[in-house]
């Protein structure tokens, strides 16, 4: 599986994922890559501001997008609706995307890795319980890594 998450200057985030699936899978097997919420997710989220901030600043909510693309044992992603589970923690518990990804991946019994972009913080997000080929680029340059902890 391969994937990319891009954010443009308007703050729009897109998750793109593509795969051949599992070696020697049964013909007709559909994995997590085309199943929204399992192998990918992107959404614009609104966080209502606290009352005092709404009164003082007049701004009622902060809106930003988040996006994820996943790779690993696809059936594990499907069973746990993994990417949507992560984004739900951002949406309802106001976790950062990184913290949400680490919590969900830590609870995932099968091999799993996700990449993402958190529009609230501007951060690139990587979380995995195995190794994952990955990379990141912005106007400060590019970086790639293969191994866990690299």
């Amino acid at each position, binding site marked *: *599986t*391969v*994937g*990319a*998450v*891009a*954010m*443009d*200057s*308007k*703050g*729009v985030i*897109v*998750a*793109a*994922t*593509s*795969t*051949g*699936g*599992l*070696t*020697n*899978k*049964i*013909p*007709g*097997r*559909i994995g997590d*890559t*085309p*199943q*929204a919420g399992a*192998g*990918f997710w*992107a959404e*614009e989220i609104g966080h209502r501001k606290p009352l005092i901030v709404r009164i003082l600043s007049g701004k009622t909510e902060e809106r930003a997008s*988040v*996006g994820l693309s996943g*790779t*690993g044992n696809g059936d594990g992603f499907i069973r746990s609706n993994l990417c949507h589970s992560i984004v739900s923690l951002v949406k309802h518990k106001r976790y950062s995307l990184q913290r949400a990804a680490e919590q969900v991946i830590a609870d995932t019994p099968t*091999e799993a890795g*996700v990449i*993402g972009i958190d529009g609230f913080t*501007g951060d690139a*997000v*990587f979380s995995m319980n*195995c*190794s*994952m*080929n*990955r*990379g*990141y*680029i*912005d*106007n400060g340059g*590019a970086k790639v890594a*293969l*191994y866990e902890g690299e």
Partner: protein
Amino acid sequence: MVEPRLVIHGGAGELTPNQLTKEQEKAYRHGLRASLEAGYQVLKEKDDALLAAVAAVVSLENNEVFNAGKGAVFTNAGTNELEASVMASGQYDKKAAAVSLVKHVKNPIKLAAELLKYEQDTHVLLAGEAVEKMAEEFGLEMVDQSYFFTQKRWDEHRRGLKKGAANTIDDEDKEEGYAPKG
């Protein structure tokens, strides 16, 4: 206005530094870097997250080192069945579009992106021959199944058949430079 950025992955699984030869490790790093540069170039020129993400994935699909497009793994029937998806925050009513059981589209991610923009059809996930016909109508490049073939994946497929289970990776695979496919 926010600062544009791009992140990518090329597969996950169990991989330790001594599992890959220097050449294989170099091929992975080179392929990842080429994908970042392809996607970021589009991001700078077009400032469009969808076009940038698709450009980055096309680079990986065209690189046989990765399990997507050329270099995809085989089913236990010796065929290639590909799948891809895109999802965008804001701007597209359909939000997401995905394809599966695709066998003759060179870049499945381009088909998913065309479906996201295709207003006449509201379905999110399409599979099989009907969506391949749409790929032809969209003018996407169609290929014979042999395009996806690589000896490395074929050997992995044959070894797997001997073991009789999907995606079981053992020491022989690791000696062959098995790397995560995800």
